């Protein structure tokens, strides 16, 4: 027995040591790091699907620089798992770059690893500002940041909503309700700062835990603060709960979501017609002016073909767009993922808004952030999430429900 145990332990240690065999490469292997288990699994997987479709399409068309693209998949179920997985992808799978990640905290942990190893990291979906403000030379992000979300929200409030109410921006009262993980907190902070800078009154900020089963206390606090509009930053479950209880407890102010929680189909399913009129600011969704988003229709068809259902949110589209940008950059370097060559190729990209499936333009700043990506304001109308603002992308005009 004892011998068996010692043997077992030695085998474990040996496996740990040698299990990490090298991988031959005529292919272009990229790490695809998303949370595909744990609490963020749903949208993590949705995000991965977008990148996967981009990969399949590109391979059918001959790959990148003549090489077939292969994804080495990693599961960033928690921030520390993200760190482990980044290590594993780089060291064991020998990937020369990683793309991902949907979740900001996972991206932060994983990209700390790649930055120190001088490996390129492409973020296609996480929005925390800090991802591209750390000054890492190997960090690139194709999607808009939390600050861009806030800009869109503030813009909508000052340009459309305040005039509609017949108020000046300085008379507008805004409350923020946000889930209290890093995602909700940083987005809420960013909005709060921008709103104040625009002269809007932020009358209350209500953080709450996303896994709760009752948000009545948040609603009571919001009722007390009596805002003109409530900006909510939520995951999926709490977005539903907040909207349901806001309706039940007769919160007067309309809700404006920020990102995934409010644009996922289950939100509309859960609320039925009461979802009507809920605003949201998010990545490009599917009910959008097609002039503004060339390639979106094709993406929808591909999605249906590949996964046999309709997309559950716009995350897949954003990752599809981002992955394509990444492949184009790699194409230009001739398949090299050397950080310097990537930098040279990336800084040369210049696409005006309205020319990609998300409608986003592409122009990178020194810090690796795409400054031409802007989120859009959408609104639930008859069970569909339609783009309502800005006008160039909208298919309907926004309404305020009584």
């Amino acid at each position, binding site marked *: 027995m004892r011998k068996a145990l010692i043997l077992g332990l030695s085998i474990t240690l040996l496996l740990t040591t040698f299990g990490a065999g090298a991988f031959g490469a005529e292919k272009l292997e990229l790490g695809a790091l998303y949370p595909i288990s744990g609490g963020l699994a749903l949208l993590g997987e949705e995000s991965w699907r977008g990148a996967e479709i981009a990969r399949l399409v590109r391979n059918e068309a001959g790959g990148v620089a003549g090489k077939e693209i292969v994804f080495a998949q990693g599961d960033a179920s928690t921030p520390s798992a993200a760190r482990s997985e980044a290590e594993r992808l780089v060291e064991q799978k020998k990937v020369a770059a990683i793309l991902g990640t949907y979740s900001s905290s996972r991206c932060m942990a994983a990209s700390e690893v790649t930055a120190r190893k001088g490996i390129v990291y492409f973020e296609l979906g996480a929005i925390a500002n800090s991802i591209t403000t750390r000054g890492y030379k190997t960090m690139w992000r194709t999607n808009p940041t939390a600050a861009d979300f806030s800009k869109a929200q503030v813009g909508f409030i000052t340009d459309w909503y305040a005039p509609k109410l017949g108020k000046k921006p300085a008379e507008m009262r805004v409350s923020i309700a946000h889930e209290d993980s890093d995602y909700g907190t940083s987005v809420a902070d960013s909005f709060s700062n921008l709103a104040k800078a625009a002269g809007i009154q932020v009358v209350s900020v209500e953080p709450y*835990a996303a896994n709760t089963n009752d948000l009545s206390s948040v609603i009571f606090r919001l009722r007390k603060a009596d805002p003109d509009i409530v900006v909510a930053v939520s995951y999926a479950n709490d977005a539903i709960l907040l909207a349901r209880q806001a309706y039940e407890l007769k919160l007067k102010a309309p809700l404006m979501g920020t990102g995934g929680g409010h644009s996922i189909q289950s939100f509309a399913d859960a609320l039925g017609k009461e979802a009507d009129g809920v605003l949201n600011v998010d990545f490009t969704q599917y009910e959008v002016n097609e002039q503004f988003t060339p390639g979106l229709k094709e993406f929808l068809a591909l999605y249906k073909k590949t996964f046999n259902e309709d997309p559950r949110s716009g995350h897949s589209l954003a990752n599809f767009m981002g992955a394509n940008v990444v492949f184009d950059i790699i194409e230009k370097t001739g398949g090299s993922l050397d950080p310097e060559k990537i930098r040279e190729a990336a800084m040369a990209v210049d696409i005006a808004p309205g020319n990609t499936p998300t409608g986003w333009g592409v122009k990178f700043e020194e810090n690796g952030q795409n400054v031409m990506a802007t989120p859009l304001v959408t609104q639930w109308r008859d069970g569909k999430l339609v783009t309502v603002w800005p006008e160039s992308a909208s298919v309907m005009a926004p309404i305020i429900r009584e």
Partner: protein
Amino acid sequence: MDLYVQVLVSGLLLGGVYALISIGLNLIFGVVRIINFAHGEMVMLSMYLTFWLNHLYGLDPYLSVIIVLPVMFVFGVMFQRLVVQPILTTSATMKIFTTVGISLLLQNLALIFWKGDFRTVRTSYSMSSLEVLDIIISVPRLVAFGTALLSIIILYAFLKYTYVGKALRAIVEDHSVARLMGVGVEKHYWFAFGLGTMFTALGGVLLVPFSSVYPTVGVPFTLLAFVVVVLGGLGSMSGTFLAGLFIGCVESFGGTFVSPGLKEAIYFAIFILVLLVRPQGLFGKGKGTEEVGLK
């Protein structure tokens, strides 16, 4: 003033469901003396069952109790026979970890079979509410509260007036005395487990009209139910009911007047404090506590 009444009503309604879920735990914990970390997963399973009955066959959530309760009773009995029975004689640690393992297992089986989507059942009454003197009362929550109250009264009567109920009460109070009195203690385990699971499941069913269903939905309920049971006192049904309402109100008032992000922290802190000062619980008589590790 209105706000205080509104917050109170809201807390009481919430507390009703907490009480129901905790009553199930109290029965199981009291009789079998096991800390079941998979308790929240029983809530989760009953919620999924309700959801699927509605989704596939259009069965109203409230009507689905006819199916969900018996099924979950059988599930509870099976759980006792297959999982708990073999570890009864091991240490508390082993019991805790077996149920932690089961909880992990059930959560992830749910993830595999039903995916991580947030599923909801929408009924005509899902978001309807009454307004009485400016106080808003959510209908599904009121139904949940009323049902909780009613079923706790029924359980109370059952424990008080039937032979099996009396035996269960004797076991909760003191295993060895019950044994001396000729009560077959182990014989009642499966029944207590089934019954406890059934009440927990009823709590789950009542949650469905106003709460999403997803694989980890039960997680917060496990610790919450323990807090309620300990505050209410082991073996005390009325204590558990009051403690459930109390925790509901703590959550509601704490969330509204302190911070929504700290509402759980407040009742956990109260829990630790009560363990410190009055381990037999706020409403408990302190019976049977010695055996399970309270002095």
